[in-house]
């Protein structure tokens, strides 16, 4: 499964209908993510890397509209086009299969809810049945082990605590069947009848604290009761990551999660993400503009410019043999002491009336006549190395 693609984006077209005109934000974007890898999506402001991530979750805000293409997710042994699914299906996908973390952790957290309430919300949405079942199973196992006997005092006490009485069991079974059952809802509010709900909430809290501990947050019980404004930037970002991972998604989309953080905190978060990837076996799509982070974190890299993916290759290849002129220029821009600062001449073209042909042609030192008239194809120039450039057309292998 390590080599198989897990998510494929084919010919994605995204447009924003604004006052000034139609912004062609994404233009036939092609991308694929392999199971278990970290794919870096690099580019500068306005290149479309963030909206690509949002498109995968179909969270593009108006006036944006996806005008074409497919986003295929390999789920339940078949390929599903996420763009053609109904909202209810997508809500299941979000959080469960694909999760996203954003740049500003403070604004991703609701300021009027505690950390626990926010992570619990995610857990309740996706793992309600699982937790009910766990409670019921625990009770059954406890009863059996008590019957068998031969337990130490402590074990006996723990087992006794897990046993559910008949009423609680009935309620939990009802909840398992249909969480929106009115009997369940009403009973959970009435003080005498809501013991089952309390047990359930305790289970959720245990999960929340476990998640926070996994995020290497010290003193997680105390942090769980804090409000977002009491958290520092790094801590808040960890909470956001905990929320995103609480339902064990297969794909984590990270949209510049460390850009707003201090550099030492950034190192902590990046180390955490790497550890979590191993622990949870996740696939990560890491969106950033920092080539240093890319070199550190990613296995493969997609370089984006003005709404196109212009190069896609393994990370060593990108740094050693950048093929696309933009990638080359970008790498040269990185400041090195002792040398003059190199910049890219010109400006990113306006996406409202994007240039015909290659969108980089007015800044490209290798521009040919063809580049102004015809859009290049996304070709495989070398093994596992694809470029969107006329210089390499005809080298398909």
């Amino acid at each position, binding site marked *: 499964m390590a080599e198989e693609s897990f998510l494929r984006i084919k010919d994605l077209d995204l447009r924003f209908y604004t006052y000034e005109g139609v912004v062609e934000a994404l233009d036939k974007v092609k991308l694929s993510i392999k199971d278990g890898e970290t794919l870096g999506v690099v580019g500068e402001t306005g290149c479309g890397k963030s909206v690509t991530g949002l498109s995968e979750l179909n969270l593009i805000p108006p006036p944006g509209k996806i005008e074409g293409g497919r986003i295929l997710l390999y789920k339940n042994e078949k390929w599903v086009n996420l763009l053609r699914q109904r909202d209810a299906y997508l809500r299941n996908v979000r959080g469960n299969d694909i999760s996203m973390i954003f740049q500003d952790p403070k604004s991703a957290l609701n300021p009027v809810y505690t950390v626990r309430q926010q992570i619990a919300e995610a857990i309740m949405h996706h793992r309600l049945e699982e937790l009910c079942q766990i409670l019921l199973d625990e009770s059954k196992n406890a009863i059996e082990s008590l019957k068998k006997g031969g337990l130490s005092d402590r074990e006996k006490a723990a087992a006794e605590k897990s046993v559910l009485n008949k009423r609680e069991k009935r309620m939990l079974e009802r909840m398992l069947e249909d969480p929106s059952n009115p009997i369940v809802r009403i009973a959970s509010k009435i003080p005498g009848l809501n013991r089952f709900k309390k047990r359930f909430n305790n289970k959720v809290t245990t999960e929340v604290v476990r998640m926070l501990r996994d995020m290497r947050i010290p003193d997680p019980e105390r942090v769980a009761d804090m409000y977002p404004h009491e958290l520092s930037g790094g801590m808040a970002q960890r909470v956001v990551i905990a929320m995103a991972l609480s339902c064990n998604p297969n794909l984590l989309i990270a949209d510049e999660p460390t850009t707003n953080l201090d550099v030492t905190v950034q190192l902590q978060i990046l180390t955490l993400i790497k550890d979590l990837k191993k622990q949870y076996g996740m696939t990560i799509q890491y969106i950033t503009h920092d080539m240093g982070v890319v070199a550190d974190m990613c296995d493969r890299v997609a370089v984006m410019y003005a709404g196109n993916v212009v190069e896609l290759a393994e990370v060593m290849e990108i740094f050693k043999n950048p093929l696309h002129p933009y990638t080359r220029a970008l790498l040269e821009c990185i400041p090195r002491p002792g040398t003059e*600062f190199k910049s890219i001449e010109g400006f990113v073209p306006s996406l409202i009336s994007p240039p015909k042909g290659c969108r980089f042609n007015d800044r490209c030192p290798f521009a040919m006549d063809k580049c102004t008239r015809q859009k290049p194809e996304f070709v495989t120039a070398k093994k596992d190395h694809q470029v969107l450039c006329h210089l390499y057309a005809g080298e398909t292998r």
Partner: protein
Amino acid sequence: MSFLLELDDLKKYYTLTGGLLRRKVGAVKAVDGVSISVRKGETFGLVGESGCGKTTLAKTTLRLINPNSGNILFDVPDEAKERIRTLQREKKGGFELRSLRRQWDLAVFRGRRLREMRRKMQLVYQDPTRSLNPRMLVKDILLEPLAVQNIAKGTAALQRVSEMLQKVGLGERHLYRYPHEFSGGQRQRIAIARALITTPRLVFLDEPTSSVDVSVRAQLLNLFQVLRKDFDLTYVYISHDLSVVECIADRVGVMYLGKIVELAQTPELYARPLHPYSIALFSAIPIPDPTVKRKRVVLSGEVPSPVNPPAGCRFHPRCESSMQVCQTQEPKLVDVGNGHFVACHLFSK
């Protein structure tokens, strides 16, 4: 005088009041005894993370915030500096000290003297979207300093503005536009033009390239170098982007929780960081080269808030090499040779 700006033990504390009677319950020691000297014509880099006080230091030096104590000696003759320091060292706070400070020490300037000084020191803010008045035309933004400082009026002023715009790479046609009509890089150029239009001697650059793209960053950095030559400027470059500071600064100071913990020439500091915090800071810079594998020092805990800094050395709770003395005594900045200063008990003799 080779030192254009000298800060002596500058302190800025914010008092926290609490309780019914609004009593003082604590202090945020944003800048806690910083002494630096900036040479004329150099670029002095100031690095540190959020909350370390580098921006507060810049604003206090510019008197946008008023310091609690300390001297700010800008463009002061050496004899006057010596005299002030001697009097302070001998604790002779009498008439002579007061009048000397009124004449030379920016920390106590008021009124007209202060306003005159504003001409000579300027600040470029981090986010040009917020530092330019969205309802003013570029022309008016740039004319304002000239009018306020009585440098030029009417057509002469407009002439200077046009010239300045051209120097930063914009044109006359940009005069009659609002800031929101420009890109981020262009807005930053307007902010730079505004800072330089009064021909200052010293310019504080507060993370001027952190809100622009990588490709535009290089353009701005080149612009800084050109302007430094053309206008004979001295820069204090504040940033948390250590890779940029390495390329642009002559000397670098590392700040942590309101204090300077290390200070050295740039090549020396980057090659041989001595303070444990500097080592951690430098190891955290992401290097854009996947082949380089190095030992990264991952600090534990968060950057603490300057409200109740730890006793003794401020860094000791997170320091791997902390010793007994670090918990009680604050280390002083000592010279370890080569113009390299460290504030760490590992190096104090």
